[in-house]
């Protein structure tokens, strides 16, 4: 398997989500709505799958001062962006997990431990996790609060559709949209918002 590098470590966690810190010096940028995996240190075969629901740059007093200054030198700018220790915080929503018996779209039985590493999933990992079962993981996304769900889903579906197509499963996107329509049937306003976001994301169904 084409393992990617770890890009951050867990700071805090509960059974639904976790927060991770990210060092700006690392190469791979975690994007909004990326699927990530968190191998839990203690058990070799247990890893949690999650979705990046928020990327936040923490503020501190020093930054405020710089931002308020009239002009900022390039040196100060790059020093701040590259050398600072934990300037960026990522929120990750749990979608399911994997253990020796395979994937599950239930919430992970145990949260990750602090300082566990986080990896971006490869296309085939994404395809493997999202085509397991019958889109059970979508319910976690639809339930998340304080996040623009329509945007989150649109980006997630576009990326996953690319991963699925790369794995010869181009019908996945159609099934996924149908599942969302089914799940959101009773909330017509919410559903229409999601579907128009999907349109903006230019998802191809061929």
């Amino acid at each position, binding site marked *: 398997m084409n393992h990617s590098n770890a890009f951050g470590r867990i700071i805090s966690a509960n059974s639904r989500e976790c927060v991770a810190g990210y060092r700006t010096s690392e190469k791979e940028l975690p994007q909004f709505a990326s699927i990530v995996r968190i191998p839990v240190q203690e058990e070799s075969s247990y890893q949690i799958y999650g979705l990046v629901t928020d990327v936040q740059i923490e503020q501190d007093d020093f930054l405020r001062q710089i931002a308020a200054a009239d002009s900022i030198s390039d040196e100060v700018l790059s020093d701040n962006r590259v050398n600072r220790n934990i300037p960026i915080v990522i929120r990750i929503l749990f979608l399911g997990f994997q253990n020796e018996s395979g994937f599950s779209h239930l919430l992970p039985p145990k949260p990750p431990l602090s300082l566990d590493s986080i990896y971006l999933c490869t296309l085939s990992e994404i395809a493997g996790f999202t085509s397991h079962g019958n889109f059970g993981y979508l319910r976690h996304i639809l339930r998340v609060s304080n996040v623009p769900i329509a945007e989150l889903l649109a980006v997630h579906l576009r990326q996953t559709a690319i991963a699925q197509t790369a794995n010869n499963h181009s019908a996945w996107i159609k099934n996924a*949209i*149908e599942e969302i*329509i*089914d799940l959101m049937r009773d909330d*017509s306003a919410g*559903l229409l918002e999601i*579907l128009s976001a*999907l*349109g903006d994301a230019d*998802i191809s169904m061929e």
Partner: protein
Amino acid sequence: MEQKTIGYITGGSLKTGFLVRLTVPADEIQEGGFVVVQSGNYKFYGLITDLRLKASDSRFSEEKNELRLQKDIALLLNAKTLYTELEILPSLMQKVGPEPGTEDYAQYSQSVDSYPIPVKTLPAHHAVVRIANAFDVWEIFGDPKAKAKFTVGLTREQNHPIAIDLEKFIHRSSGIFGATGTGKSYLTRLILAGLIHSKLASVLVFDMHDEYAFGDTSPDTNIRVPGLKEKLGSHVKVCALGRGTDIQRKLRPDFDLVIEQQDILPEDIEMLSRELNLRETTSNTLAALVQSFGEKKWFKTFMELKSGNGEGTLESWAQENRIIPQAAESLQGKLSRVFNKSYILEKAPTNCIQQIIETLQSGCSVVLSFGKYESDLDYLLVTNILTRKIREVWEKRTNDFHGGTGKQPISLVIAIEEAHKLLNREMAGQTSFAMIAREMRKYFVTLLVIDQRPSQIYDEVMSQLGTRISGWLGDDADISAVLSGLAGREALRGMLSRLQPKEEVLLLGYGVPMPLPVRSRRYDENFWKDLLGDQPIHSTMKDAKKDWMFPDE
């Protein structure tokens, strides 16, 4: 066996029918479709009675989402949230048997278990609904080739032949209805041909418009179709009203019908009250006439009573019998329309009515052609006298049979076009027809009522009709009349008003296991070939045929 699945059960009740969510495009399904729901141990048979557009939320139906969403996404949304709901009128249910063709099946098909029974329970949610296939049709409507079965039409979707049970058809009075031009006369010809050919009954047709004996040229297509006499010559005798009357101006009948004056009873006249505009005093006068001159002579004597005064005049007779002379004179004047009928003679050369009755009793059918006597007066008077006589004979025969002194009389079907003329509310009490409709099945006589205005027929008679076959009807009252006394009336109403204007009928009532709209069988040469086979016409029949078709050759 092909199984076209169309949807699944989502709800319903015995009272309101089953609800089905359609899984195929709505335009593949039509009202009136014959469907089967299989659920657990039972198959349910029913009719599609309504289609309804539904949305899981009105926002999905009211807004044109295909305009604001990406096209493919909108299609998915519409497919998921917009759908068609069917309403099914359940009629019958049947235990699911073993695979057809197996030994178990043979045993099962003989057992009571295999009989379809009226629906008494419901299929489960999500039970699959499909269009009936040939086997389902066969299970419910039976083998159209079986004895006493007669194919009247084809299912609209898949052209499966649908047969009626002729024995049931004649066991109670039946009716064929539909607005003008819907094909009543054509369908009647078909069914009568099947009936006569089956030899299950003799048929007496009151052929008011000369359509049945020698066929008819369709005004719509200009194609001439053969009549019953032409095709079933040896089983059908043609009788024309009046002496030496030709039918369709060139064809000689087998015999004539002349009515003797002594056959006319006061009740035959009273029945003409509306037609002749008779007064209330009429029955008094008629009673006095019978008392003075006897049942057999009153008509002739009254006709000959002179006006003026002195002995032997109408006035002196009236005074002697305490009848107001003006009333007697007025009645005599009004009856002149009857006195002048050339088919009423003092003495007929042969006893025509007897001849008709004997022909019918021998198992041969009779078409009575009215020829030029097309008025309602002729129709009412002649059909009533004839039917009265027939009824007497059949009643007596049946009583003899039950008393052990005679054979069972042959079943008789009397076919009457424009039946409302004889069976309207006003008339029903006075003619023999209403009585036949009510109780004559016990005496082996039933009616085949053909009419375009069923609402004009007395309800008590309508409710007695067993098998009903109806083409398109526009009038609400007519529709109600046809459906009176049947289960599922409300659901069937719409279906009647949405039949094709021609050659499509709804089969209803006693003679069919469940209501079903069908495309009428075509009445043409192919029909006759099917019915008679390709057998060459017997040579003596051929000669006989020449005789009646071309009398001058």
